[in-house]
């Protein structure tokens, strides 16, 4: 130890300072590279060609989320139901498909599939003859609001149990044994085809999915979709199509009005 302590200390301190400066430069350089990489990834993603109004990587992620959701979905899980006292009339939120001239007396529900079965033209009485279901569930709009609504109508599953068209073979459905015979999707559209929604078969046949002719104890108003609309609590409001003209069972994923405008096709709860 011939070196004076103070000088050695000084050398050491200088060394430490140089060292931390080196580390700081290196860390900021790594950070800058990571930030540029992140920004480049962002830039790449936002400039990808659109797939239904959003960049395709975002669309692909929605599809992947859909697979996860459909894997987790169980038809036995039900939307909570509420007492009739708290049911409210939701706002009329959209007129697409309701604007044209419409004669309720001439209305028929067209029930068909892509396997070539003869399409059926059902009257409102045909629907009303099915078991009547009366329930209060939340209508959840994709915008973020929700209202408890009392729906009265027939189960979609009862409709196809009676009239068929949901299976490729044409055999009556038996959810436990003929799942593989079921079409994978359902398309519903307004009579003028201006509004259309696609549903996965599990959601369409969910026990709470109703074809409604009454809302809060009153016959449907035109603005809420008279004479027949869908109430599907396992989906956002956008799938609760009003004034249903056609129900078509298909294996091809149906087009969906709002999915084409950037929303999630599945939109499921």
């Amino acid at each position, binding site marked *: *130890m011939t070196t004076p*302590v103070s000088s*050695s*200390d000084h*050398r*050491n*301190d200088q*060394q*430490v*300072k140089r*060292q*931390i400066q080196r*580390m*700081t430069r*290196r*860390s*900021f350089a790594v*950070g800058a590279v*990571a930030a540029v990489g*992140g920004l480049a990834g962002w830039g790449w993603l936002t400039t990808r060609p659109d797939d239904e*109004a*959003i960049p395709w*990587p*975002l*669309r692909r*992620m*929605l599809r992947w*989320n859909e697979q996860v*959701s459909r894997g*987790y*979905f*169980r038809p036995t*899980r*039900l*939307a*909570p139901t509420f007492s009739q006292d708290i049911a409210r009339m939701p706002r009329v939120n959209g007129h697409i498909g309701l604007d044209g001239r419409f004669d309720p007396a001439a209305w028929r529900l067209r029930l068909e599939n892509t396997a070539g079965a003869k399409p059926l033209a059902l009257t409102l009485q045909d629907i009303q003859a099915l078991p009547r279901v009366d329930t209060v569930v*939340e209508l*959840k*709009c*994709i*915008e*973020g*609001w*929700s209202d408890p609504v009392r729906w009265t109508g027939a189960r979609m599953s009862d409709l196809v149990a009676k009239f068929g068209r949901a299976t490729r073979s044409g055999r009556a459905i038996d959810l436990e044994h003929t799942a593989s015979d079921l079409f994978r999707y359902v398309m519903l559209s307004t009579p003028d085809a201006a509004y259309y929604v696609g549903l996965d078969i599990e959601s369409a046949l969910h026990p709470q999915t109703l074809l409604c002719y009454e809302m809060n104890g009153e016959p449907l108003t035109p603005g809420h979709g008279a004479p027949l609309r869908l109430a599907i*609590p*396992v989906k956002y409001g956008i799938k609760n199509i009003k004034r249903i003209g056609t129900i078509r069972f298909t294996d091809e994923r149906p087009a969906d009005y*709002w999915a084409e*405008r*950037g*929303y*999630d096709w599945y939109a*499921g*709860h």
Partner: protein
Amino acid sequence: MLRLEAKHPRAVRWFHWINVPLLVGMIWSGLLIYWANDVYRIGWGGFTLFHFFPNWFYDALHLKFRLAEGMAWHFFLMWLFVVNGLTYVTYTAVSGEWRQLLPNRRSLREAIQVMLHDLKIVKTLPPQGKFNAAQRIAYTGVVLMGAGSVITGIAIYKPVQFAWLVWLLGGYEAARFEHFLLVVGYVLFFAIHISQVIRAGWSNFRAMVTGFEVVGADEPSSGLLAGAMPTPATSGTIIGAAPGATK
């Protein structure tokens, strides 16, 4: 005499800095969604003190009419946010870092003392350690808030499949409100966090970037002062003492 002391493990720094753009992205896309039904406010009856959010705010950040885009981003980034958060929690649990981060019996009392000190009401500080009691509470709390965001988020994302969770949270609308409230919490956390980082100075900030802090010889290792076990990540990484230079 100065030496370098390892303060923040590399993994923790990466988790922290990756979380910054992820949380910003989640809040940004969340605002795109929130705009479509912006019902929350601070007020009583007909009187509104503050509406979330004023028009100028949406205009300034271009948040209007972008609901679909917001949802697509939110449901993309959510996976990265969850993975980063879970990996961080797993890392702190396995590495032993949790010992420096979790509050303990003394933390509440000490945190109040830290607060009184920082507000210049009292002069004395309780023992600081690597993280003081206020920091322990804040950094554990913000992780719990992250978990809360995920839980309330799942409830409003799949309210029928997770109806039991919606029920626990007090209903669908309550869950949406709680999801929003947590964002207010992040903003408050951020404001305090940034002001404290500025107060603590460059050396402290640099430690979160480089992992190392320059300390004087007379300053004991913060990890030891806290009475905590030196963690595998910090032990044996003290650099700087030249051979034979000890006094």
